[in-house]
């Protein structure tokens, strides 16, 4: 049966981002999730193509099947029908560093062209303008998960040539750097923003435009990026959400906690 796609005016950008994130989760995978959009994306994946995905939250909830929206990664809601409730050494240590995590989701205040991430300071380290939350488990996840999806807003001040602070390692300064440094995981595989999806060129390890969201031009992406991203000859439009996905998404977050209904 052919998929029935929703017209672009019927969904919001955040809804599209959640669907994009959800598609990265494969059935049966062990997936590290934080709060916000990734949480919604994971809940959607479990209700659609990946019912067997094992969702793990670093605070200790393992193989969670939450039915209510959690505000904190330590939220008791995440314990609903979970397989285990343990702790950090278990999740970030034994499970993640031990090599059992297929995919992780992280956010970013700044990202550079090699997918390195800042979640600590805006401004200089000596005299910061804003103190952000810090690494949390972000550094651990992007160090050791096999793949990592970054979800963030696309603005020039966020897509930067040089980070104010390097909290979590992407491909560092290019090909071979992760291996030389001793990092275990595969590094970032996809960046999902409000304008587009970007992957990484296998040769140079630099960010490469993969798809643009409906109504967004390649030029718009370029104008909102502070570094030169690789632009292939053909840049397809991001696959639209289906009616089923959108309906499920709205049922998952009925109060619009992470995805407000209006544009």
């Amino acid at each position: 049966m052919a998929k029935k796609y929703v017209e672009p005016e019927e969904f919001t950008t955040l809804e599209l981002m959640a669907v994009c994130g959800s598609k990265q989760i494969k059935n049966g995978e062990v997936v590290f999730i934080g709060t916000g959009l990734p949480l919604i994306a994971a809940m959607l994946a479990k209700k659609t193509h990946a019912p067997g995905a094992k969702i793990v939250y670093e605070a200790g909830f393992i193989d969670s099947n939450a039915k209510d929206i959690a505000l904190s990664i330590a939220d008791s809601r995440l314990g609903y029908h979970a397989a285990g409730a343990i702790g950090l050494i278990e999740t970030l240590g034994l499970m993640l560093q031990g090599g059992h995590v297929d995919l992780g989701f992280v956010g970013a205040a700044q990202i550079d062209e090699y997918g390195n991430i800042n979640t600590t300071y805006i401004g200089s380290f000596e005299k910061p303008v804003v103190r952000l939350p810090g690494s949390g488990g972000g550094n651990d996840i992007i160090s050791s998960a096999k793949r990592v999806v970054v979800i963030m807003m696309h603005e020039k001040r966020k897509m930067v040539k040089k980070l104010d602070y390097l909290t979590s390692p992407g491909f560092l300064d290019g090909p071979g750097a992760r291996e030389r440094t001793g990092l275990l995981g595969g590094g970032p595989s996809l960046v999902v923003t409000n304008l587009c999806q970007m992957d990484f060129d296998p040769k140079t390890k630099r960010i490469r435009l993969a798809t643009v969201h409906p109504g967004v031009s390649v030029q718009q992406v370029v104008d909102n990026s502070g570094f030169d991203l690789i632009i292939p000859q053909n840049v397809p439009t991001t696959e639209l959400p289906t009616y089923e996905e959108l309906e499920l998404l709205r049922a998952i977050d009925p109060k619009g906690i992470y995805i407000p209904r209006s544009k």
Partner: protein
Amino acid sequence: MQCLVEVPVEDKRISLKEAVKLVPDGSHIFWGGFGFQRPPMAFAHELVRQNKRNMTIYTCGSEMDIDILSGAKVVSRFELAFFAIEGIGLVPNIQRRIKEGAIEIEDYSNLAMALRFLGGALGVPFMPLKSMLGTDLLAKSRFRSKKAHTMDCPFTGEKVVLVPSVRPDFSIVHVSRVDKEGNAQIDGIRGEDIEGARAGKKLIVMAEEIVDTEFIRAQPDQTVIPNIYVSHVVECPWGSYPMMVYNYYDYDMEHVRMYYDQCKTEEGWQKYCEEYIMAFNDYKELLQKVGIERLLKLKAKKPLAY
């Protein structure tokens, strides 16, 4: 209940006030709870009321509890991985105190902090891990002369990061239930509390309820902190309000949001501190102000844990 075996049981119970009095200015403290789950909020309030100063706090990720300690200038240094008020925004008081130079932060990752507590508890000086490599977490330090160290493994040659173990003066954790001897059980996730509790030279266990020793000994497999580690026990129902305790109560987001909005300014924080902390003699008075109706609404609705 009839005791089947006669064993001497030490009574380690003290009041919250007495417990906080034991922690002198300038102490190094492991701070328990993770995110919204089981923060020692009542302990934070009492530290503020007793006008404590110059503390160094070690934790993985904490939120409104350590923001209160920062607003009231109880803490001057943190070694941690994360703070925010999740689902709402950045921590307002810490933000301000950093700008004033009143607070310094040494940043690690969550796994690094958890391992530092495990190292302290194990009595070894450092722990190796595979995070932090290649980043500013490794390259930049705020006040530690030696924050972390990279080396090649002497057995395999593989690159590892060594992080220094932590043995703070006190560990403070808030648990689900404990007996008077200090055998503690935690429902739900434990964050880094298992390791952190054992890292401190003295351990103060706060609990939602104190239960009979027989109750603990009838289900010893549920005990996650045995009495051997515990110095003092403090009964503290609703001790994490307005945050949450698994199987006991949900968070009060209305209160948390009010706190966040109000603390965007120094005046707003001072007003909050006066109205919700300093105005009271102890934590129970805060619960009275919140009111029984609101608290009952937050009570966990079985079989849910929230």
